[in-house]
């Protein structure tokens, strides 16, 4: 009796993954993400300090702004002195830098990659395009506001922002992390249905599970 | 002691017969070659047993039982040759009957037409 009840609850927790063909549903996890609360204040403070000193950035140049990330790595700007390092896989990265305009095709990949990052995870949105569409405000396939699709921690305005602006943005992010304000990971989970609705509204061929673990 | 001429004749016939068997394509001629060779063999046999100036080993009015040993040639080859002739005849007969059958089946007397079995 009790077991049955548990099963029911568990089933409610599952994602429908309706857009996947029948035989592929077994190949994707269908669990719903859940929020993970922070530890107690002091321990979390220590961890946040470490997190802020070791920002691993997902090397995924989604738009033209990715060009501005390259100088950041060079000896002139040298992001490594802030503990920022590029990581080639979202599994290991903690910061997602959206490099400017995001087309519908790209936003699908952005969502996948963002969901595959292990929290706590942070998003820096680069350039005007991510804020309000920028010069692509009337394009038929470029989104206008990134924060309707994934939670954004820091916006860096400009078209394009210079590397200095990027460093400033990263510093801002660090401050926010240390202040414990970067809970985008939990925010995404809490407003999961809303985000999904927004995403699905523009991504028409949703051939992936509802949450990409 | 033995009759050299007949021996040479026999060997010659034998060789002629074998030559005929080896070179003639016609089945009949091959059988004829065989017969010649057979005959050559018989002559060789007889000539080996032949002693000059003696008579055939047949005990009749001419040769009495008592002096047969002195007067007749070695009787054994002659006896052998009789058997051999019979046997040769039989073989020839079987060969000819084969040829008849073969001709009935294949309408050919050339030995070259009977070589589908090989390798």
């Amino acid at each position, binding site marked *: 009796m009790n077991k049955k009840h548990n099963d029911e609850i568990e089933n409610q927790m599952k994602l429908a993954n309706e857009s996947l063909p029948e035989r592929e549903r077994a190949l994707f*996890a269908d669990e719903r993400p859940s929020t993970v609360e922070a530890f107690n204040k002091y321990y979390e403070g220590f961890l946040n300090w470490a997190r802020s000193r070791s920002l691993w950035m997902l090397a995924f140049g989604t738009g033209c702004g990715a060009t501005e990330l390259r100088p950041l790595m060079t000896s002139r700007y040298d992001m490594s002195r802030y503990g920022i390092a590029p990581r080639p896989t979202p599994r290991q990265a903690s910061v997602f830098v959206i490099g400017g305009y995001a087309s519908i095709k790209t936003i699908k990949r952005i969502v996948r990659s963002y969901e595959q990052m292990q929290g706590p995870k942070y998003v820096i949105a680069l350039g005007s395009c991510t804020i309000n569409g920028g010069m692509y405000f009337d394009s038929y396939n470029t989104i206008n506001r990134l924060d309707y699709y994934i939670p954004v921690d820091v916006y860096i305005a400009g078209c394009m922002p210079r590397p200095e602006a990027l460093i400033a943005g990263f510093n801002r992010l660090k401050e926010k992390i240390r202040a414990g304000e970067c809970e985008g990971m939990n925010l995404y989970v809490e407003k999961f249905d809303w985000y999904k609705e927004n995403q699905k509204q523009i991504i028409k061929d949703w051939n992936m599970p509802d949450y990409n673990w | 002691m033995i009759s050299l001429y007949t021996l040479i004749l026999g060997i010659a016939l034998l060789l002629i017969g074998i030559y005929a068997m080896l070179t003639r394509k016609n089945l009949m001629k091959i059988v004829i070659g065989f017969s010649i060779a057979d005959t050559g063999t018989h002559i060789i*046999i007889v000539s*080996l047993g032949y002693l000059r100036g003696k008579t055939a080993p047949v005990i009749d009015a001419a040769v009495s039982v008592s002096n047969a040993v002195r007067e007749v040639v070695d009787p054994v080859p002659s006896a052998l040759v009789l058997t051999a002739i019979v046997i040769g005849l039989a*073989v020839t007969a*079987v*060969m000819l009957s084969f040829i008849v059958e073969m001709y009935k089946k294949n309408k050919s007397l050339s030995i070259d037409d009977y070589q589908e079995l090989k*390798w």
Partner: protein
Amino acid sequence: MVSPIYILILSLSVGFLLSIFDRAGRKFSLTAFYSVLTFNVALMGDWLYRLAVLHVPTFVINTAGFNAPVSINLELGVAEALVLFLANLTGLMAAVYLFDKFREGKVSSLILYLLLVMGVNGLVMTQDIFNMFVFLEILSISTFALTTLKKNLKTLSAGFKYMIAGGVASTFFLLGVVFVYYFAGTLNLGFMTADQFSGIGLIALFLLSVSLFIELKPFPANGWALDVYQSVDSGIVSVIAVVNSAAIGFAFYKIMPLLPSSFLTAFGMAGIVTFFFSNMMGLKQENAKRLLGYSSIGQMGLLLASLVFTIGIEPAVRYLIIGGLFLNHLLSKAGLFWIAGIVKEEKIRNWGVLRNNKPLLVLFGLFIFALSGLPPFAGFWAKWEFVKVLVDSKMFFVLGTVLVGSLFELIFLFRWFTMAVKENADELEPMASPGFSRIFPVSFFGILAAVVSFGAMRCFYGSNWLQVLPVIAVLFITLIDSLPSKVKGFISLAAVAGYGYYLYPLLTGNIQLFFGVIFIAGSAVNLISTLNRKNQSKGFYGFLLMMIFSFGNLLIASTYLEFFLSWEFMTLSSFLLILRGQNAQRASLMYMIFSTAGAYLIMVGFSFAPALSSTAALILSIQDVNLPLISFIVLAIGFMIKSGSVGVHIWLPEAHAEAESDVSPFISAILLKAGVFGLLLLGIAYVSNAPSFDVFYWVGWIGVITAIAGAFMASFQEDAKKLLAYSSMSQVGYIVAALAMITHLGWVSALYLAFNHMMFKSALFIAVAGIYYRTRTRKMYEMGGLISRMPWTYMTVLMSIIAVSGVPPLSGFGAKWLIYTAFITKGWYLQAGVLFFASGVSFLYLYRLIHTIFLGQLKYEHQEIKEAPAWFIIPQYIFLAGIMAISMFPNLIIKPLNAIAMHYFDSSIQIDGLTVMSELGYWNGNLVMYVTMAVFAIPFIMLLLLKGKTQKVKQFNIVYAAERPESPQTTHVAHNMYAHLRKSLGSLSLPRVQEFWNSVAEWSHTLGAFFRRVYTGNGQTYLLHIILYIVVMYAVMGGQ
């Protein structure tokens, strides 16, 4: 006591009366006909009994009341009686076989048949050479006429060619008779002596003997005979091939005492040449009866050669060789010709139809095995003794030719057999069920062959029933073959256990006990996996038991012959087991060819060995034997073939892969160890009596190269079983290399590795068998992700590959530690370097095995797959327990192995508590295990504490460059996994050896095809061959 002359009289008189009987009805004539034939057999049987058992003196019949030489006399001794008994028996059986033909055909064929029989009897018994000619002609003419029993163009033309050849030969024979008479003055063999023919008189003997010899169809003057064999009715052919040849051969045997030794040598050589070439040409032959013709001619050549080359040896042995070969030829060839007549398919490729008739297939196999000289049939014993004779008389060229010729014969016979068992015959018309009159003679001869072989065995072994046990096992299982497979499995398991129990007290040496554990205990555990069989598995357990018992018998074999007998039983049974695999036709044939080649070498090697002085088991008594160098070399090669060393390994992967999946563990884990056992035997002999040339140095190198080559090739396999097979090859290479060191540590490591290999390779093969059972594929790239579906199997494979790779703490490391220490101590540094490389490469194939099957992406079709059945899991975990035990407590095995090796060398290791110390280093397996457990536990706990909220995800939840995977197939990295390695070092993995052997095969077939072009099919060409043959023989003999 009925005089044998009645055979002639009765045959002749009844023959003439038959046409009269026939008037009264075919029933009467047939009754008379068969009664005469039966009477002949009975009479000869009676005489044989009297002469052989009651030792009645040779019976002489003087015709016409005179004594020889005046009259013609007939003699009947043991030899004559034996030949005639068998000839008459075959004649009777052939007549039974021809019953339908005789009932419907003309009465003349009955008459001719009786005449033929009479000719045969007369030819054998007569002592008068002209009489011999007469009987020969009677025989020939009746045979000529009988060839057209089935009258068509082929038989007619073949018969005509036969007549030309026979006619010319008999012409020369007649000439010879007369010349002999001319020189000897008598026609009676009993009154001739060899010294009557000197100088030109030799021509007489030459003509006499060479024409008889031509009647025995020597190469190349034998085209006519082949045509006859191919075309004429099987019943008659069996008579021509067996009865006629026997009689003519016996006639030749009778005149042999007259011939000078130069003649005899030439005839013997001609016989060998015939044997060699006809078998080589047989390779290319596709027509069943013509193939049998080639084989017959070859066998006659061998028989003649054995007649010649055994002159002057002990009569008992001589009779054994000649009698064995003759009996073997007679029984199996007659049987095979009859089966060929029943099957009616001309192409051997179409003989799959034989599968409709299982008993006939069994008989067919029986005859093929007999003909190939496999035990327990008569040919085996004859061949063994013949080889010994040839070795003793230092006729190495003859020996080589005989063995190569035999191998050729075996190749085409077994190819035929595998075709009959495996070749697709679905499109062919199924074979009609043969009548009783046809099946009876075949069965009778089959049973007779079995009885004779059993008799031979008894005469060799008396009451040593253990050696016969493999055969008994087959017979027993055949009796209960209708039981369900599981019952038979349990019975077999019990049988193996009982055998082990019985064997245990006989294993007096430690080394025997050690291999006993590998062979018997290993087999018993492996046997559990066969219990999963669902279908009837007819015959399977019989062959399996045969193999297992042969393994055990190897251990206790106390003479070379016993060892070799068990070895051949093992080969035969494993061949039959491999052949059961679905596509195993090619693989099993290759296995058989290589094994037999190896067996021949072993046979030769043992023939060179001096006699044993002790009656203890060979493995124990061999140390007192001073083997000559040639024995070492030949035996080493022979055993290395069995253990799959590089160069002769190509049978190994095929056989392992194509055998049924529960047979493969036996082959890999246990059969290969038989080769190791053989090498160890050799090593023991080497320790006490080392030859001047360091054979084992090179064996060591071969082992090392085998290890690296096997590892490389395993890395590039796509087939799981082939991968494991090459891995076995590599591992056995290690063992061989370690054995070859001939040091204490080397042997300890070799035996350790052998034991270890037995366990992990059994476990791996059984695991793969379980996987195959579920997935129905062996291609690794078609699997993947099975860890979630088959976790138990995964565990086995994981543990086993750790044990293979030599990673501590499992037992594999012990082997590595021992072997490298041994190598460095021995001073084989570069070899050790190569082995290090091999061990590095082994990681490649091991990872490939486990990754492509268990890790990565699960395929759609395997989503619902189940764990392997328990019958597969149980033995795996028994082996796993063994691995864990000796990993945890290496002393369990090191100590006994130390004791074994100490028997031959001074110990080079000390065991201090749980630490094993060598000259160079030390190793404490127990402590390593504990440390490993501890260091494993620390990060594990650390991970559990720190890992946060962990979500278990599924196979497609991967980072795929921000995409989602398309399908499991395209996401799984498996096919050509080491492409980069292939790119850089792939030339090392090219199948060069395979190519070499392919070209050897190609060349022998091409040569066969080239030589058989002499048989143009033209009667005149055949005649020319005969004439030229006579000329050449004259030149050869005259020259001497």
